[in-house]
């Protein structure tokens, strides 16, 4: 772990390797771990403490971090219903190991799909997250570049179906099955796992009955999925998702399915993250801590566009008040006119100081001090236009600097 303490007077000093200022680092870590910009007090605390490790510990213990972690898993596993949300809330709170969490979801929590269509849809939505690229394409055809065929998609979907098999759809173009044919569940790589389907099973399903199995297909599948030692693909794919979450899609370099030609070694940051996970017995919090205090955190990246959720939570942090009606608000990529109407709504009720303290506004919104030139220019324009202080917030909330992650 690379813990770098900052000298307390180093406002403008760079964090090694001399590309990120403490202000930028604070903003980045808050965005990544809390899903929003730091509040003014949080920036000031970091600058005063000059303790990178301490900041990461504080952020990981923050309630908002639990919420962001839950959201990560909601996207990863396509969680929807209130029971699923309650389940993931408990899992994150207890910091259950990743393999245990995955096993619990597939073996116990997730209800088996009632129809083939449901199983296809679930695999289409989550396949890329769990196995790497390729599974959304293969619902309809063999993958043009990856080593995965449409039939393998159907076989894998069988594990999500309560009976352990699906039927080939009408849009099936290959000569290894015909539309309507029964396709039993089978894993596409790693240790082979297949569900045996007898004629009696098929007849039972046709008669509207359920096939009874000693071990449900979902439970067998969960065991295969979390056997990271023999089946490293899953761990690799999920690690990529974590690194992507923390440091952006610049790290989503090639993840290839087993058997791809050529098989590229994983990029160093992914290999390092996998090593951390294995060493910590798949502990999520340890991974987040290590990645956040790793040298990767101080690399210079092109700014990332923030999501709607991050934009709105950042506005809340800047104004220190909840913004109502978050769901119906426009996102940061919507048109100027839509965003402008939204600004008019949220700023009208907020009370601002009569005189503009530009330092305060910049620390609250951009997590940095303004330059002398910026201060002078803004104060002069504000005086000339005779607009209220709220208009400074309006301009900043709509600016590219506010809407991007450094």
């Amino acid at each position, binding site marked *: 772990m690379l813990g770098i303490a900052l000298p307390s007077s180093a406002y403008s000093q760079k964090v090694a390797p001399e590309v990120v200022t403490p202000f930028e680092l604070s903003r980045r870590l808050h965005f990544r771990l809390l899903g929003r910009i730091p509040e003014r007090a949080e920036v000031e605390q970091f600058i005063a403490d000059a303790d990178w490790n301490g900041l990461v510990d504080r952020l990981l213990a923050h309630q908002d971090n639990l919420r962001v972690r839950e959201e990560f898993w909601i996207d990863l596993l396509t969680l929807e219903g209130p029971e699923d949300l309650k389940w993931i809330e408990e899992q994150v709170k207890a910091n259950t190991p990743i393999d245990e969490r995955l096993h619990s979801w597939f073996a116990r929590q997730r209800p088996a799909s009632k129809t083939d269509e449901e199983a296809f849809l679930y695999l289409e939505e989550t396949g890329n997250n769990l196995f790497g690229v390729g599974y959304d394409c293969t619902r309809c055809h063999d993958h043009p570049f990856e080593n995965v065929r449409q039939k393998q998609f159907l076989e894998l979907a069988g594990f999500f179906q309560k009976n352990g098999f699906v039927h080939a759809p009408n849009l099936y173009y290959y000569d290894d099955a015909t539309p309507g044919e029964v396709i039993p569940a089978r894993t596409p790589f790693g240790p082979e796992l297949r569900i045996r389907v007898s004629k009696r099973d098929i007849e039972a399903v046709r008669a509207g009955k359920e096939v009874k199995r000693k071990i449900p297909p979902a439970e067998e599948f969960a065991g295969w999925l979390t056997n990271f030692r023999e089946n490293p693909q899953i761990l690799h794919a999920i690690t990529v998702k974590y690194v992507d979450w923390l440091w952006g899609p610049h790290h989503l370099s090639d993840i290839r399915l087993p058997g791809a030609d050529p098989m590229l070694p994983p990029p160093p940051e992914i290999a390092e993250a996998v090593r951390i996970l294995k060493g910590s017995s798949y502990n999520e919090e340890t991974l987040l801590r290590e990645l956040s205090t790793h040298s990767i955190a101080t690399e210079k990246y092109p700014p990332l566009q923030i999501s709607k959720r991050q934009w709105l939570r950042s506005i809340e942090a800047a104004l220190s008040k909840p913004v109502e009606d978050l769901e119906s608000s426009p996102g940061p*990529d*919507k*048109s*100027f*006119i*839509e965003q*402008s*109407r939204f600004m*008019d709504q949220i700023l009208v009720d907020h009370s601002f100081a009569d005189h503009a303290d530009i330092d305060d506004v910049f620390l609250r919104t*951009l997590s940095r001090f303004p330059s002398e030139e*910026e201060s002078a*220019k*803004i104060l*002069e*324009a*504000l005086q*000339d*236009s*005779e*607009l209220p202080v709220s*208009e*400074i917030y309006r*301009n*900043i909330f*709509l*600016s*590219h*600097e*506010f809407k991007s992650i450094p």
Partner: protein
Amino acid sequence: MNLRAFPSLLHCGIALFVTLSQADDTGTARRVIYLNMLGGMSQWESFDPKPGNGPAGLTETPVDRLQISGWLPKSGKIMDRCLVLRSVRSGFDHVPENSQYVRLTGYTRRATVTHPDIGSWVKYHSPNRGPWFRIHSDVKTGSGFLPAETCGPIVIPTPQSVQSISGDRSLWEKRNELASAFSHLSVASLHSDGDSSRAATRFLASEVGLTSLDWKEEAAGVQQAYGDHNFGKSCLLARRLAENADACFIEVGLDGWEAEGVDYFENTRKLCAQLDDGFSALIADLEKRNMLEETLVIISTEIGRTEAITDKRRKFQLSHSCAVLAGGGIRKGIVIGETGPRGRATGKAISPGAFNAIIAKALRIDPFETVYSPSRRPFVIGKDAKPEGIFQEVFGKD
């Protein structure tokens, strides 16, 4: 000299100059109103119907041997002012957004560069003209590698949305003044898909902005003719922006043709009714104001539909769609391109690049002028446009 007659004499003079200077393969347009049918408008229920295929029936038109869908009765009456293109290549992907990208930019998506759409190209080549507008459309293409600040659209989500924010011009003037102090925070990305917030602020602060956006000041009869729906009102707003704001390009969207999860034909019938109201009223209104020859009106869609009806709906067809052009110096009352019983072009097809080249030619912009991206790669409006006489067919003298 009677001063009241001066504007009309001037207008005649300009029209005469334009006519004389017009070559056979260019138009007379000063602006484009692009009615963008989003989600795949069915050619069978619009401008390329086949007898007995589908529930829409046929509408006779004043043009010899031209019939259009029975769900477009008002448009049928004005087809003698229009040119129908029945073989525009379309549908490069089952994902409509990807096909929209190809149709509007002329290029397929690349990870390394974002291409400008046709509105941004037009604005790039018309630097002294007013802004370009995107109304009631969720399309994500924009200025691409061209500077967003000067070539990006001003996006108007709905005609109602501008009514609520454009009332106080003095406030926008002040905001425009203040915005310059923050311009360094808003350096537009080279790959920005968004609209230009500085251009929008400037527009809202201007007299023409205020006048153009206030579509409710139109006579009740005019508003009624455009129809009581967002698309109709957007067409009316487009005409006002063309008339008052010197807009060089206005895109108006009509979304929902994909009809996912709804009764496909009932949905198509309703959308056709909106298109019928908006398009016919727009053409009549432009004609009444002597603006049709200087305004190219287009109906276009990104993807076609299959001739077969499966599960009570038509699927996307990765082959051809149809388009309609009117005004702007194009030939009237003709059909270019033919399709067979399965909706495929039987002769030459018009590529998205060639379609954009026609728009450029209508505006007398060279579609083959090379513009370099910041990474020094060459791009043109008319990518892979093999004219083979198409410009003569579209603009040539009858």
